[in-house]
C-alpha cells in the first residue's frame, strides 16, 4: 500500500479530479495549503509597503492506494495538473504501514477501497 501526496496548482484541481475518476481512483482528501517551490513567493503591496516572498496558495491531495493503483494514480495527477510552467507542483509517494476503516474495523488493502 502506498500513500500518494501531491501538491498542485489550485486551478488544476478540477482537471486532476476528472483524471482520477477516469482512472477509477475515487478516494481523495483535499486541503488548501500554503507554500512555494522554485518559482518563489508572490510580492504583495499594501498602501505602498511591499511584502515580498508571501506564500502561494496550493492544493494538497492525499490518496491511499493499493500497489496496482500507484502508477495509474500518478499518471492521472500528471495529466490533470501539468501546465509545463514552473509551479505545477510535485507528487510524493510513501509506503503506507496500515489502513483501518473506522466503520467496520477492516484493515489493510481491504480497507483502502
Amino acid at each position, binding site marked *: 500500500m502506498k500513500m500518494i501526496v501531491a501538491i498542485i496548482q489550485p486551478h488544476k484541481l478540477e482537471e486532476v479530479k476528472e483524471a482520477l475518476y477516469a482512472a477509477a481512483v475515487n478516494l481523495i482528501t483535499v486541503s488548501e495549503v500554503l507554500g512555494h517551490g522554485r518559482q518563489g513567493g508572490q510580492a504583495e*503591496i499594501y*498602501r*505602498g*509597503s511591499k*511584502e515580498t516572498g508571501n506564500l502561494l496558495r496550493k492544493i494538497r491531495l492525499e490518496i491511499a492506494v493499493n500497489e496496482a493503483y500507484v502508477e495509474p494514480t500518478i499518471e492521472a495527477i500528471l495529466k490533470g495538473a501539468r501546465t509545463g510552467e514552473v509551479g505545477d507542483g510535485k507528487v510524493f509517494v510513501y509506503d503506507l504501514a496500515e489502513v483501518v476503516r473506522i466503520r467496520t474495523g477492516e484493515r489493510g488493502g481491504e480497507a483502502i477501497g
Partner: protein
Amino acid sequence: MRKRAAASILLLALAVIPGFSQQAESSLSPGNTAWVLVSIALVMFMTVPALGLFYGGLVRKKNVLSVLMQCFITLALVSTIWIAFGYSLAFSEGELIPGVLGDFKWAFLKGITPDQLSPYYISDEAGRIPHLAFVMFQCMFAVITPALIAGAFAERMKFSSFLIFTAAWQVLIYCPLAHMIWSSGGWLYKLGVLDFAGGTVVHVNAGFAALAAALVIGKRDHHKLLPPHNLPFTLIGAAMLWFGWFGFNGGSALAADGIAANAVMTTNAAAAAAGLAWALLDKVFNKRPTILGAATGAVVGLVAVTPAAGFVNPAGAMAIGAIGSAVCFFMVVFVKERLGYDDALDAFGCHGVGGLVGAVLTGVFADPAVWAGRGADFSGALYGNVPQLWKQLAGAGVSIAFAFVGTLVILKLVDLAAGLRVDARDEAVGLDISQHQERAYTVLE
C-alpha cells in the same frame, strides 16, 4: 455649530448669543428635524460597523475582535459621558474657562425638554430642530472622534488603558476643542475659522492625537508586518463610511435645505475624485491599482471635504479630494516609511493629514456663490479672500498643538498609572485572546 461656527462669521450675531433665546420667528421644522434624526443614525453607523470593519480588515486575524470592540465600546462609553456632562462642557454658553470650556449647566441634559428648540442652527435660523436632536447628532460626532485614534495603537494597547485613555481624552481634549470651535462662546469660532462638519474638531484633532499615540506606544513587535487579514471587510467599511458621511456632512447643515444638498453633493464629489486619484497613483508608483488604495483614497477624500462641504462647489470639492488624496498617498507611502513611526492603520496619515489639507483648502476653495442670498459671504483665497486662508491655518495650528500635546500628556500619565501596552506574550498571542478571551474565527465547528 461647526458650520455655524464657521458660518458664524455672519450668523454669529443672531445665533451665537441666543444660547436659548428663541426668537419669536423660530419654530420647529418637521422637515429639518426628520433629516437630522436620520443623520444621527447615519453618523452612528460610521463608528460601528463602518470604522470597525475598515480598521478590522486591516489588522491580523488575532486582533480583529479587539478593534471591533474598541469601536463598539467607544460608542457606549462616549455616549454615557456625553449625556452625563460632555455635551454641557462642549456646548453650554456658561463657561468654566472662557472661550475654551463650557460649564455643567446641562449635565445629564437637565432642563432640555423634548419641545425645546435647539439654540444652535446653521443655515436655517427660523426652522429649528429639537435641542435633543442636536445633542444626539453631536453625540455621534463625539463618539467617532476617539474611535478614529484607535487606528494608531491597534494590535498592542491594553483594553483597560484604552478605556481610561478614551474617557480622559473625551473630556480633556474633545470637549474643549469642540467648545472652542463650535460653541457660541468659543474663541476660534469668534475668529471666523470655517469648519462645516468637523474637519478640525474631528479629523485634525483625532489625526494628530493618533500621531502622538503612535509615538508614545511604540512600534508593534514583529520583524515584518503581515498583510491585512480581510480586505473585503476594509472595502465594506470604506463604503459604509462613504454612506454614513452623507449624514455627517449633509446633516451638519442642521436643515434639509440647499446647503445640505450642497454638502451631500460635495461629499460625493470629493470621495470620488480622491478614490480615483489614489488608484491612479498606485498604478503609477506601484504598477497596480489596489483595492486598499481606492478605499483609502475615498476615505481621505471624505475627510478632506468635511470642513469644506457646505462652502465649496462640486469642482472645488473634487480638487480638495484629489489634492488630499495625493498628499496622503505621499505621506503614507513614502514619508511614514522614512520616519519609522508605527501608525498601524494610518489614522494620522489619513485623518490628520487629510483633515489638515481639507482645513487649509477650505480657505482656498470656499465659493461665495454657495451662500449667496443667505446673507452670508464665505469666500476663500481663490475668490479674493486671502485672509481666510490665514484663519484656516491658525485654526488648524491651534487644534494640532492642543491635540498633539494634550494627547501626549494624557498617554504618558495613563502609561505611568496603568501601562499602555500589553506585554510581549499577549501581543504575540493577539489581543482577541489576551484581552477578551475570544476568537473571531474558530478552527473547529
